């Protein structure tokens, strides 16, 4: 009569070890089936991105050295961004213009390097401007935001020694992401 209890005990121990090893088991003590599940996480990172429109060229009207009026014209552009990550440290976008105050225009066809007579200086102003640096961009606004650049050619720049012709220069608008 001794071997049978040992066999039964062996079966119980064997079943118990199976039950303990798996995540979905049949419980030998109750004959109840149990279910199991596992979870996995799906994640994606949405990055900061912006669309900067190209500002139209500023074409100042024809100036004459005999005139006393300044010549002014403007251009505008838009920038649209999604909101930054609200967690952790974040420094705002840097939307800047270069040069940011005066621009030298050089006469097309002038010798290189151009002499003083072949150059004009235009004053540049942006709007709206940040009190610290660059354009004032609202980080929480996901709609396109409009900015304006104004170029002013002072009448004093148009002197009798400036050759007639076309004078050109380039302004660059740039976005910098701090991180």
């Amino acid at each position: 009569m001794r071997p049978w209890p040992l066999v039964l005990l062996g079966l119980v121990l064997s079943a118990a070890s199976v039950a303990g090893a798996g995540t979905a088991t049949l419980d030998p003590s109750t004959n109840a089936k149990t279910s199991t599940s596992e979870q996995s996480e799906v994640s994606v990172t949405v990055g900061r991105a912006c669309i900067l429109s190209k500002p139209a060229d500023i074409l100042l009207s024809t100036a004459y050295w005999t005139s006393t009026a300044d010549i002014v014209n403007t251009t505008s552009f838009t920038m649209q961004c999604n909101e930054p990550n609200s967690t952790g440290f974040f420094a705002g976008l840097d939307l800047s213009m270069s040069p940011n105050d005066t621009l030298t225009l050089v006469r097309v066809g002038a010798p290189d390097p151009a002499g003083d007579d072949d150059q004009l200086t235009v004053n540049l102003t942006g709007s709206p401007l940040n009190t610290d640096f660059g354009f004032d961009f609202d980080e929480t606004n996901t709609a396109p935001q409009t900015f304006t650049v104004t170029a002013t050619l002072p009448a004093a720049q148009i002197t009798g020694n400036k050759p007639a012709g076309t004078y050109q220069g380039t302004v660059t608008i740039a976005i910098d992401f701090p991180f």
Partner: protein
Amino acid sequence: MNKTCAALLSLFVFSSPLASAGTATFDPSTSAATPTSESFMVQATIGRACVLSKPADIDLGTLYWTGTSSSTKSTDFTVQCNVGTSGNPTLSVLPSGSLALTRTNGTEQVTVNLETSNLSIDNTVSTAQSFSISATLPATQVTVDKPAGTYTGTVTVSVDFAP
């Protein structure tokens, strides 16, 4: 009563308790000892049991609202069961079809499309069977009104046993 009858009677009285309790008896009608036996059954039940591996997390990478590319990644997992004719296990993935990912520390969501391989468990094999889950985030989900950040959601894989 002679001596022989007295001896037989004493043997009968002595052996009667044994006959009622045990399996070996003394048959007084034949006065012969006969071998006898009783049987009983030992039964064990082996149930259907499965081991489900944990699918690795899916990282769809970084997308930008200015981009036009979708992101698709997949993960694999295995289920291993013993064979059997009853209590067949079934495999399910929830949610099915699509999964909303929610921005960490926010409420904004993007929706990921989920696809799975055939989730039928072959009940005739005891080797580990592989399955896969694929997640796709369409580029159209990442719009300008989605703040930068990490968006997460959870997929649950379950093994259930039919009653």
